[in-house]
């Protein structure tokens, strides 16, 4: 698949933003490690809104005809893309409401504020699920058509949110050991789930050029694809990543998204080091951006079978 930067940014940033909001709600609801101070809550919710907004804006950049974008909310009964839009937009009033509430009252753990936060967090989590399902429902792309996709999206959104939260806590000078521990655990979950996913998609399965053409008992070779230069189909679906290159990019991805953040977070665990948590936060965002790119480039749409690929 063609990896459009706009779509990469959409799930990368909005996923992190929703994960952050959900964690803020959980931590203030349950008063984990004393809860967040009013200023920490303000920074966190603001950052979450900024991340979600970056994601949403870049998703409209992907549209070829954005003047009809408002119609995308209408088919929520059938389309996960429409559902994602509906839940993402309904996230805003509650998240902004909580932001305003904390700003005015300075009481992030009052009942009204917590209700707003919990609803925003829940809507964020539902949106992450919708984002995963956008890909997971496509039977045309074997690498996406698995429940591992929404599971991965959850792990990545929450790990990004937890890293950001730990960074906020350290920078504002609170005791962050529990938050850092949470972030490290969630990053480990990303590494594990992503590992299972890569194992899963490396197994040969799915349609072949034989089922695509109906000639099941003989070899099928493409003689001519009928066009001299690229078409929409080859530009959108034709990309292929050589195995060795994919492997080295995966190593880089694990390094940036998992190893560097865990080490940096570990360093700041004892030292409360501000640069270290910033390194962790930047590194996980860049690393997961790479993961998003791989997610697209490794996806093999079945239409490639008609262009001569033997299996997808």
């Amino acid at each position, binding site marked *: 698949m063609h990896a459009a930067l706009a779509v990469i940014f959409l799930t990368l940033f909005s996923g992190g933003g929703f994960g952050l909001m959900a964690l803020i709600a959980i931590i203030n609801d349950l008063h984990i490690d004393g809860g967040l101070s009013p200023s920490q809550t303000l920074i966190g919710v603001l950052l979450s809104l900024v991340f979600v907004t970056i994601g949403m804006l870049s998703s409209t950049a992907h549209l070829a*005809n954005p003047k*009809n974008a408002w119609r995308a909310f209408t088919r929520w009964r059938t389309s996960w893309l429409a559902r994602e839009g509906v839940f993402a937009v309904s996230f805003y009033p509650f998240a902004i409401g909580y932001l305003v509430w904390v700003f005015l009252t300075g009481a992030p753990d009052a009942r009204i504020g917590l209700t707003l936060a919990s609803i925003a967090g829940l809507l964020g989590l539902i949106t992450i699920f919708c984002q995963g399902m956008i890909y997971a429902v496509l039977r*045309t792309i074997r690498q996406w058509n698995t429940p591992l996709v929404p599971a991965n999206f959850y792990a990545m959104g929450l790990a990004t949110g937890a890293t950001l939260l730990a960074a906020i806590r350290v920078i504002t000078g609170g005791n962050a050991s529990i938050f850092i521990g949470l972030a490290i655990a969630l990053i480990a979950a990303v590494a594990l789930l992503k590992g299972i996913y890569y194992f899963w998609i490396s197994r040969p399965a799915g349609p072949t050029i034989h089922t695509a053409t109906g000639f099941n008992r003989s070899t099928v070779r493409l003689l001519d694809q009928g066009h001299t230069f690229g*078409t929409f189909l080859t530009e959108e679906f034709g990309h292929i990543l050589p195995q060795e290159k994919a492997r080295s990019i995966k190593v880089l991805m694990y390094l940036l998204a998992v190893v560097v953040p865990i080490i940096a977070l570990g360093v700041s665990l004892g030292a409360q080091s501000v640069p270290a948590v910033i390194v962790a936060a930047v590194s996980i965002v860049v690393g997961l951006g790479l993961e998003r790119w791989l997610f697209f480039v490794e996806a093999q749409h079945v239409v490639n079978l008609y262009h001569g690929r033997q299996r997808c």
Partner: protein
Amino acid sequence: MRLGLVIDLDTCVGCHACAVACKEWNTSGTTAPLTDYNPYGAKPSGVWFNRIRHYEIGEYPYNKTVNFPMSCMHCENAECVTVCPTGASHKRPEDGIVLVDQDKCMGCNYCSWACPYGARELDRVSGTMKKCTLCIDRIYDMEIPEEERQPACVLTCPAHARMFGDFDDPESPVSRAVRERGGYQLLPELNYDPTNHYLPPRVHAPIPTEGLKKKAAIKVKEWVNRVIER
């Protein structure tokens, strides 16, 4: 009604006439135009509703060239419609034709991801998704003679490799052809239940080309040819 096409892989000669007729008709049809990019440049490209590919089936000497036209299959389980967030993509309940409403589409490409058969192409100039309309502006046109109320690709095919009709009617020519010739659907494992069916090539004994004994008439013909050449 369940309208669609039958493609005869036995007789298709791979001339691309259907693709050209399709382009010609539809570029002024309901979802017109079928934009061309850089048509006189170094790398011309553009929107087509119908594409023909060519395959070699089997190993020499039991091999065969098969020409393979593909357009929208007007699937029963049209996931392209299910996933569309705007409602631009729809399947008409009365005849099963899948269409894209050009006034509603926002060009998100999602439906093209959901189509296994490469039937949808984004028009990069209008920013909307386009696809085969089953020539909806011909088949219901009461102004033209009845025998011409057929898709442009079907009318133009010089090998009669394309048939149009109602698959819900068991006695329609398309249903009969599928029944009698073992017509099949592509990628059945994906369960889109495409309406269009493909008729497999008939099985012939291979025609020998080597070590043949020449007939007397051919010998005379070759001798005449040689004499005339001098």
